[in-house]
């Protein structure tokens, strides 16, 4: 390259935006944005099985980012259950999610007609 070309090239390098940094989020930025809590609400419908007490109200809206543990604690409170009273919760009469699963994900995967059906019983029903 001639000296004019070289100095022009250097000037361009110095002044052009670095495409990676300015146009695209970094890996870390994407991760941060994924950590934002999903504040949308999903409809949960409780259904009693067997002798389990029936709630006066069985539809509730729950924030999507909550863990299933929150739903368990909420139901226990509504039923006025003590810590040692047995209570088992299932989705779609089929399985018991781990308490750390996210309500929003459960809703997306398993909702029926826009409701996440949660069955509850005082005895283990579906293992």
């Amino acid at each position, binding site marked *: 390259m001639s000296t004019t070309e070289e100095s022009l090239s250097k000037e361009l390098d110095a002044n052009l935006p670095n495409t990676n940094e300015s146009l*695209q*989020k*970094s*890996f870390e930025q*994407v*991760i941060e*944005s*994924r*950590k934002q809590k999903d504040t949308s609400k999903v409809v949960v419908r409780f259904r009693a099985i067997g002798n389990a007490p029936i709630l006066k109200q069985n539809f509730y809206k729950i924030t999507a*980012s909550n863990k299933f543990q929150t739903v368990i604690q909420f139901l226990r409170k509504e039923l006025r259950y003590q810590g040692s009273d047995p209570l088992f919760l299932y989705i*779609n009469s*089929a*399985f*018991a*999610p*781990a*308490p*750390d*699963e*996210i309500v929003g*994900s459960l809703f*997306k*995967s*398993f909702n029926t007609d826009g409701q996440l059906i949660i069955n509850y019983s005082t005895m283990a029903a*579906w*293992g």
Partner: protein
Amino acid sequence: MSVAVFDDIISKKIWNGKLPIQISLDPTENHAFTEPIFVILTLFFSYSCNSIDNMEASRCSYLPLVSEQLLHIYNGLDIEIINTEIWYDYEGEPLKWHYPIGLLYDMSGSKDRPWQITVHFRNFPNEKLLKSPSVEAAQDMFMSMMKQADFLRYGTTKRVMNLSKKDQSQLWESLSLDRYDEYWNVNQYLISDTDGLRYVPLRIYLPDQCPVIQEVVSFTNKGSSKLLGDVLNDILPDLFPSNLAIPITHGIQLPLDTPIDWASQNLSFADNFLHLIICKSVS
């Protein structure tokens, strides 16, 4: 539409994937033995403490099964462990006992061989781990995942529910005893149907305590085969396609042109879920 072929060779390699582990005691916990000792264990489900070279855990297995082995060994040495709230940490981070061991290792970002983790018998971290890490609880969680996978895959859990009690138990027992054929004798009924496929049982893990991603992912794209890259582009468009990140499972970087139905058939863990970790690319 492509019909995913079950690849026996790959499936066996996935099942047989093992991780060398070195478990050390927490020196701040007092035990019957006074010195903190490195307990180098063989965790082959036929335990024996012969050689330092032969200590491995199955990537598809779970920590409570490792604890069961530890208890056997300590009992054999006449060391009484009263507390059964056993938990493990890697570099201070408690390890989720209901996640497969291979997933935990890949999530940790550790490149250590053997993987050096610490076992604890006290001070169970209730805020960070689910309580009661027994083998029975791990089995319950495992069966719950199997049912979730069934429901996602076909829209009902009837395949799992129609298994006899004996067959249902056989799934977990064959995993805990490392019996590939016995596991697949049952599991073939759960995943070989190619009719009525709905959604891929898939979980995606991002670093840094991000919430686990489980989205609705169909097997095909308007009748034609869907690739892993398509799935990741739908779920994480900021990361795929780009050179920022790579998908890892069972310690391998997966090519983005892997058909998702093939991956689901052959690369799932024993719980019939694909567990994918997204790592930053090292470029």
